[in-house]
């Protein structure tokens, strides 16, 4: 991406900015800047896939966040943070409960959430593939549903 605009464009456009803030993006739970712990293992595509997996599983069922939260016995706000905050660090207990509701391996889901060391490279690959194929807001498309079903199969391996 290369911008090629004359100085005059900025000269005029900046005047319209005024004395206002410009921030955008989900802000989620407050966390002191500069005090973050060491990055968790798996902090990358798999973690994003965890949030998207939760969102797609819920939408596929036609559930809202409150219903999933109730089924799992966790807080609705935690469900929303898992789905939309890439910095969210879910409680292991919440991940266990969600795995139970989803009917998938809790170990695989913990790995996906970045809470345990990744022992399955294939899970990471599948998570990356799943993440780039899923979109979080609209109704599930056929492609998303197929991606979700394939990913559930992967997560269910070794269950029991």
């Amino acid at each position, binding site marked *: 991406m290369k911008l*090629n605009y004359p100085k005059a464009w900025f000269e005029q456009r900046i005047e319209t900015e005024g004395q206002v803030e410009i921030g955008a993006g989900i*802000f989620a739970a407050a966390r002191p800047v500069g005090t973050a712990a060491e990055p968790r293992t798996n902090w990358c595509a798999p973690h994003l896939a965890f949030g998207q997996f939760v969102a797609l599983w819920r939408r596929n069922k036609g559930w809202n966040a409150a219903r999933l939260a109730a089924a799992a016995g966790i807080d609705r706000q935690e469900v929303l943070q898992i789905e939309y905050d890439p910095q969210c660090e879910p409680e292991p207990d919440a991940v266990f409960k969600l795995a139970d509701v989803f009917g998938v391996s809790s170990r695989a889901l913990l790995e996906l959430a970045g809470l345990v060391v990744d022992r399955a490279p294939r899970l990471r690959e599948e998570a990356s593939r799943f993440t780039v194929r899923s979109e979080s*807001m609209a109704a599930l498309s056929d492609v998303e549903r197929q991606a979700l079903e394939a990913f559930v199969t992967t997560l269910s391996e070794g269950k029991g």
Partner: protein
Amino acid sequence: MTESKVYLRDGKSAGLVEAGLFDEITPAHLNLWDRAWVPAMQDYCAGAPPGEKPEDSHWDWRRKSRAYRGMLGYSSFALVCRDELQGLMMTNDVTSARLAGQFGKPQIYVEFVATAPWNRPKLQDPPRYRGVGQVFILAAIETSCEAGFKGRIGLHSLPDAESFYEQRCGFHRLGPDSSHQNLTYFEMTETQADAFRHHH
């Protein structure tokens, strides 16, 4: 990585100064964030009551950058002026428009955008530089055009920034989004993007 020449307005002299917009957040940019942005934000937050801290004061750009690096459909941008980091933005092209008239069409979604603490009127008077928001919106629009999305962009504004997107940039306000912590969702159409680009 490409660098574009852009301009910001110096808050003290009121003159335009040259700046560089990079279409990738690099480790060097994150080092600038660590060395100057983070301490400045901590200073501003130190004496502020909890409810008056900047809404993005806890954002960890190093982690955000690590989380999205290399993912298809995700882009990042850094704005540098006089060897200082002035702003950061991350976008994706995996969401679709919601506004009637362009519903379902692909767009560029601004995941995160923020200006350095010293450029914020609430934190420093006068701000060191003005125009960071305009540069990033222009970059998002151009990215949308390059992707064939005709300038369509969307974002969830932090509460303090809503007037910037609606009144200063010409976005459509679609209202609070319960799936995004009730942040107000804004979208720019092809026509609005054209108006923004051809302002001069």
